[in-house]
């Protein structure tokens, strides 16, 4: 039996590629060169429009895609902003665990990536995954969540959204 989801479920792989080519055609798929066999999409988005920031993103499939473990943040596709790097943004922000901002920014989590620990975007709360609690959505869907997060993040950084509103349960 194939180890990688894209070998064991080629129809799912085709559906993932078709959805990304339809909705985000500038994104390119590739494989991490770390021996993990994990696939990723990379491309740029500008969620708040022509005057907003350009975000260079990697959408990295976990090898258990499309399934997720209980309590796993972000589903089976991890969203890593390459530029701007969340760790660099957070470095200039106060750490306020009591306000739900233990990493400086709302709705992010940390995880190892290669030799570094990186900050990733939290996308859907698992209870909102379309196909049930243990199944994630597609890369295209995860990217739409990420764009929603970016709008929220940019507005929060600009002071247009308060801490209370930015936190869990509101967006």
């Amino acid at each position, binding site marked *: 039996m194939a180890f990688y989801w894209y070998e064991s479920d080629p129809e799912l792989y085709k559906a993932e590629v078709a959805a990304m080519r339809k909705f985000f055609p500038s994104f390119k798929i590739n494989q991490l060169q770390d021996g993990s066999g994990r696939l990723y999409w990379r491309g740029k988005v*500008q969620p708040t429009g022509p005057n907003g920031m350009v975000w260079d993103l990697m959408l990295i499939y976990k090898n258990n895609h499309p399934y997720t473990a209980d309590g796993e943040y972000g589903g089976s596709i991890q969203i890593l902003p390459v530029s701007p790097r969340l760790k660099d943004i957070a470095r200039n922000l106060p750490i306020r665990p009591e306000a739900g901002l233990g990493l400086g920014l709302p709705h992010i989590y940390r995880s190892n990536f290669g030799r570094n620990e990186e900050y990733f975007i939290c996308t*859907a709360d698992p209870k909102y995954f379309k196909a049930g609690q243990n199944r994630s959505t597609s890369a295209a*869907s995860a*990217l739409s*969540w990420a764009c*929603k*997060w970016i709008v929220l993040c940019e507005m929060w950084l600009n002071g*247009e959204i308060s801490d209370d509103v930015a936190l*869990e349960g509101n*967006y």
Partner: protein
Amino acid sequence: MDENDNNAIAQRRRALAEALRTNGEVVVTPTGEVEFKDEAENSDTPAISVPEGKLA
């Protein structure tokens, strides 16, 4: 860009944020721009709906 333009942009951003908060009809275009669904309907390019639900 004059003050009226800036006010209009800020007002639209607030409306978008409220639509995102309340699971309103919001889509993401191929460039990643988040727009109201009726704005995107005037375009030829497909736009994906932001799924209902909350950020984790």
